[in-house]
């Protein structure tokens, strides 16, 4: 079996290349870990807001919100100065009754959003308070009104008795004795309780958790693509490919030999990346871990075939690196990190020729919605199709170096 002999040789070479091994196994873990740090840091953003002429009730309300600090400024120019000095992130100024002007530094979209929400929240909270006191006052008025009505009824009774209409007045008195209007008990619950239930994850689920299945796939794809491409490239530039092709080996045996050894490596890498993502990063998987592995491994093998194919178009390692912006980076944009629906129609079309899209879809379905592999036969089928076509092209492509 020449395929096995080639696979064995490639594996031996790989195992002796410690740098490459480190790149394949340690680098993705390191990057995932760094990303986790960066994205989870986002959730503790805090903002400083300068206020001008803001009613103290609103200001107190605003200050009470977590991660929001309020400083009252005596006028607009003082506030502007603070904004310019980056002491505050926004200025809220009351211009007239129910008119507010908010000026954002807007250097950080997260902070801008936070200020917007905080202010809205503070205003409505304040509104509720005002309403409550209005209702209380109204309640007071009702009590007074009731008293007035009672007085009036009493006066009426006296008048009726005086007029000597005892029979008819009796009936009236019966119903008028206890007034029909009862004073409503005004009680606005001070804290509205909202109970949150999460279908996926918990209250700490953030942007990172959403993109992590896709990132995981991306790293698998990226590293396998690069390293397998480099390997065949080296075989070609060093002349060993020519020498290999000067033996009766089949072109398919070379391709399968490479797929076998790098496939083994990709399998180990996939397991490491998936386990890191799930346990170290604490990503919750609704579906089965095995399904995640299968999809990632499938993606890795596609990347492998893709890397081998692309390496035939590169004349040096540097040219191989040039494929990164052209082939690798676009995959990230179309893999579902950015919702595809928001893109123009023709741009969406591009996504359908990129393997990472299908893997990203499948992974999101498994991780977030708990789908099983059987429900993902479309994505899996497409990935397999990629694999078959790319492998065929690779075997064909070796014809450039030997005509039989």
């Amino acid at each position, binding site marked *: 079996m*020449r395929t096995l002999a080639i696979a064995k040789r490639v594996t031996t070479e790989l195992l*002796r290349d410690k740098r490459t091994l480190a790149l394949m196994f340690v680098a993705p873990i390191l990057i995932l870990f760094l990303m986790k740090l960066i994205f989870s840091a986002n959730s503790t953003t805090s903002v400083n807001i300068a206020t001008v002429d803001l009613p103290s009730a609103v200001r107190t309300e605003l200050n009470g919100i977590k991660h929001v600090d309020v400083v009252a400024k005596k006028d607009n120019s003082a506030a502007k100065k603070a904004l310019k000095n980056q002491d505050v992130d926004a200025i809220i100024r009351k211009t007239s009754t129910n008119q507010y002007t908010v000026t954002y530094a807007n250097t950080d979209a997260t902070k801008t959003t936070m200020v917007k929400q905080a202010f809205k929240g503070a205003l409505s909270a304040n509104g509720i308070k005002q309403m409550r006191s209005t209702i209380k006052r109204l309640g007071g008025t009702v009590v007074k009104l009731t008293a007035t009505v009672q007085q009036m009824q009493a006066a009426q009774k006296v008048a009726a008795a005086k007029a000597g209409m005892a029979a008819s007045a009796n009936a009236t008195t019966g119903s008028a004795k206890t007034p029909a209007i009862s004073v409503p008990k005004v009680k606005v619950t001070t804290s509205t309780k909202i109970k949150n239930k999460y279908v996926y994850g918990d209250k700490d689920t953030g942007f990172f958790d959403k993109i992590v299945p896709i990132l995981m796939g991306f790293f698998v794809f990226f590293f396998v693509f690069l390293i397998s491409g480099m390997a065949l490239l080296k075989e070609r530039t060093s002349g060993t490919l020519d*020498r290999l092709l000067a033996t009766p080996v089949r072109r398919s045996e070379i391709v399968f030999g490479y797929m076998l050894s790098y496939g083994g490596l990709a399998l180990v890498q996939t397991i490491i990346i998936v386990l890191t993502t799930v346990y170290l990063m604490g990503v919750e998987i609704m579906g089965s871990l095995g399904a995640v592995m299968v999809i990632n491994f499938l993606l890795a093998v596609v990347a492998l075939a893709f890397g081998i194919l692309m390496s035939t178009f590169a004349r040096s390692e540097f040219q191989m690196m040039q494929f990164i912006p052209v082939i690798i980076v676009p995959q990230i944009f179309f893999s579902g990190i950015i919702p595809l629906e928001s893109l123009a129609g023709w741009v969406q079309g591009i996504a359908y020729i990129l393997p990472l899209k299908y893997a990203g879809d499948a992974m999101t379905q498994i991780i977030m919605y708990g789908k099983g592999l059987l429900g993902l036969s479309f994505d899996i089928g497409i990935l397999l199709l990629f694999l078959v076509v790319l492998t065929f092209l690779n075997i064909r492509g070796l014809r450039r170096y030997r005509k039989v």
Partner: protein
Amino acid sequence: MPEPLIDMQHLVKKFGDQTVLQDVNLAVMPGEIVGLIGPSGAGKSTVIKTTLGMEVADGGTAHVLQTQMPNRQLLGRIGYMAQDDALYDTLTGRENLTFFGNMKGVAKADLTAKIAHVAAVVDLTGDLDKRVSGYSGGMMRRLSLAIALLGDPELLILDEPTVGIDPALRRKIWAELANVRADGRGVLITTHVMDEAELTDKVALLLGGKIMAFDQPAALKKQYAVDTIEEVFLKAEGVD
């Protein structure tokens, strides 16, 4: 008369617009060492790649072991040594030999003995278990030759095997080629070292995409009325 191991008739090879080989006629008989000489860029490697079926001729015919090339199966009966030392340098010498032995289809049972034999021929027995990255240039050339010799091929095709090696090793390689010849096997060897051409049975002069002369060294020298192949070469180039 025995059948030729290599028989090329009116071979034409083009790369795009560039016609590298115009009309190449060449034959290698069993028990013969044929030297293909020509300046660098003349197309010597192209002749060899066409012989091996890595390139397809654009005209004429190339028969190897009575079979029209390209033909994959036939490659198991040819020993090829490329111009550059194409070796896996993270592997040891033995691992390289084992790998290429497997590729050539040498029987598993014979492989160990055959590796020991070719290693002895090129004097590498003591260094077989060292990694190739630790080899000197000369050792790499010898390992390269050992790989070509593996499996007792009927035909040896060597592309500039003696470039950049010391005289002692060069002599050793030629001694081994003489052994191959004595076995009744054939050798096609390219070189641009003219005094090596003196050691061959026949010399083919490749110039301008054509074989300008193809004969025994002595006959060529006589024909051109000079004392060395080098002078034959210079004269032929002047005539062109």
